[in-house]
């Protein structure tokens, strides 16, 4: 194969493919070790594994976001807006993160009708939810709630936690644009917000457009990550 046969896009895609394989095996390996710890009641090692698996999940979320943004930027993402069962999409997102949440003793609550269907790109919205859950995992005390309702022609997806909530500075500048630069203590680059907001905006119905907002309050009085899709 000559060099011009391989485009940069192909390179990115195949590298991410490779990294995802590695991550997948890594997480599976860690979870197998965790099972062994549980079997021999080794709580100390077990407690140490949770944060490591969480970091692997964050890496995966970043990979998904980078690749999607790259393709959205070049207008080559295969956007596939189709009717989806919202409850199914939420349930699957939780299955991704379940073991991590269990490690930290976080209780998950879902508030969504089984009969709730809406139009969106399944993979992109799963990406938004994964990112929101990874954030909530960092900030929550011990509870996270995902709520979905249809209201005024929009699907509203809320991820709420019972932590301290977003700082005022972020709320005032709507968080999405404020969060520039890397904050190594929180591990935040703003990528997740940018991705989520971009994806929400890609969802359009007639003249209406999706949006992302952050607020404090909700059912637990902590941070709330709110996506609205037309």
């Amino acid at each position, binding site marked *: 194969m000559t060099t011009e046969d391989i485009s940069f896009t192909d390179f990115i895609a195949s590298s991410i493919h490779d990294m995802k394989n590695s991550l997948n095996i890594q997480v599976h390996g860690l979870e197998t070790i965790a099972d062994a710890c549980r079997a021999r009641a080794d709580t100390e090692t077990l407690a140490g594994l949770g944060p490591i698996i969480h970091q692997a999940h964050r890496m995966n979320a970043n990979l998904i976001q980078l690749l999607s943004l790259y393709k959205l930027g070049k207008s*080559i993402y295969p*956007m596939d807006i189709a009717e989806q069962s919202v409850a199914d999409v939420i349930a699957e997102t939780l299955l991704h993160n379940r073991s991590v949440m269990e490690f930290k003793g976080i209780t998950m609550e879902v508030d969504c009708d089984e009969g709730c269907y809406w139009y969106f790109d399944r993979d992109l919205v799963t990406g938004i939810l994964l990112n929101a859950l990874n954030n909530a995992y960092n900030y929550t005390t011990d509870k996270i709630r995902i709520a979905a309702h249809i209201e005024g022609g929009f699907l509203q997806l809320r991820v709420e936690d019972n932590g301290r909530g977003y700082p005022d500075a972020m709320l005032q500048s709507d968080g999405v644009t404020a969060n520039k630069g890397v904050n190594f203590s929180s591990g935040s680059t703003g990528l997740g917000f940018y991705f989520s907001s971009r994806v929400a905006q890609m969802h*359009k119905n007639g003249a209406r457009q999706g949006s992302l907002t952050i607020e404090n309050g909700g059912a637990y009085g902590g941070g709330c990550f709110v996506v609205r899709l037309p």
Partner: protein
Amino acid sequence: MTFSLPQANTLIIDDFQGMRTMLRDFVRLMGVTRIDTASNGREAISQLSANKYDIVICDYNLGPGANGQQVLEEAKLRNFVGVSTIWVMVTAEKTTDMVMGAAEVKPDDYLLKPINQVLLQSRLEKLLARKQSLGAIEAAIRAQDYSAAIAQCDQQLSARAVNPQEILRIKSDLLLTLEDYAAARALFESVLALRNVAWAKTGLGKVLFYSQDYAGAVQLFQQVLEENRMYMEASDWLAKTLDAMGNSAQAQQVLQDAVQLSPNSPIRQKALGDTAYRNGALDVAQAAFEKTIKISEFSPHKNPAVYARLARVFSDKDSPEEALNILKRSKADFRYDSAAALQTAAAESLVYQKMGQVKKAEAAMMDAERLMEQLADKVSPEMTMEVAKSLFKLGKKDKACGLLRDLVKNNHEDAELSRQIGAVFEGENLAEEGQTLIKASRNEVIDINNQGVMLAKQGDFQQAVKLLRTAAQQLPHSEVISVNLCGLLIGLMQQKGKTEDLVLETRELLGRVREMNPVNKKYHAYALALARLANDH
């Protein structure tokens, strides 16, 4: 569905040892005991040919050789997997061709990595339930009983199915297959009244295309693409519509844009090659055909016609050596395929003719003619036109015209084919003569049919049958003649009483009609009438 997860015979296809082991561990934890693995496309096909699998979990990216989509296509084509098999593609990213490309065969679902055991299990359980709910519809489709399939769709829709959009989509495809454009239009419009969804808008465009409202269809396809330029199905239809309007330059541009975005569909690349060749854009045609050959190397779409076309391109570019090379490759790649040999021989004759080697050109054409006779009704209209083109170049105009005349007569209601035949004449600077021939041939068949109808109206079924029988002998591939003869035979038996010979003759004809077109509108009515006659004592 007759199996539950633990009983499922499962195949895991992944080139990466670590992933294979992990996936096997996952399904083992679900209680599955019968698990095979394959590490590449070739191994997978050999496993699939030897065993019947209920579940196939396949990585899209399989390293060198076939990819997951190509393995799926081959397995479906060779009937190694049926409608009840669950095929899940595991992939690092969603690809256009898998989700909304030109691919006719799609996996039941895809899972984005990383995956874990609970996620995979949850997805497989849902797919099992879905297969169960769609089982009756799929069985009817498989039996080619499309009306029954539509009835099944309606039944599920009125019982408030969990996936109404999916069933509406299946139903709309069935309506298009049955050419019930009014019902299809109503379905698409009712979906669009609620929300602007790409599949329904594209569907409405197809209805307009089939109703020959090409301008309206173009507008709809363009709207879909403005909203989402990765919706390749709309782009493929846009090109097809522009072509039908005679605007092949714009069609070529649409296809060129599409292959930029999604280069790995052999069907689209071939369409680009054909359109560009007709437009005289030889470099574009060459690149498109070369790419088609490259990406379909491990695919069931591997097609000898593309090699023959590429050879013509080289010949037109005055590179006869390269043309002969590609034909040599075709001979090697398709050595047990007489249809391929026919196309190769026709192209070879053309190349030698251009090189001035008349003897070799004549010899190749003799081969082609011999193969045509051997293959008889397996010769497609496309192949016939290729042979005719070569005959023209050899100066055998009468023979070429004869072939094309028969082709028109056998398909006299096929406007698209007539247009293509017209283009062959145009290519020989015989546009006017071609139009006259096409018109005369069509009228000849129409006249016979009309005479038959007239005689039947006068009650003379005997004479009508005699007339159409002669026509059917001369035009064995004409669906219209065959089906009308069926009607007359049934009328004759109703009038004069049945005989064993007439019942047999009608039954055989009906079988041929169904083979030519499983959704012929008169087929079911005639089959029913024949069954009544046959059972009547």
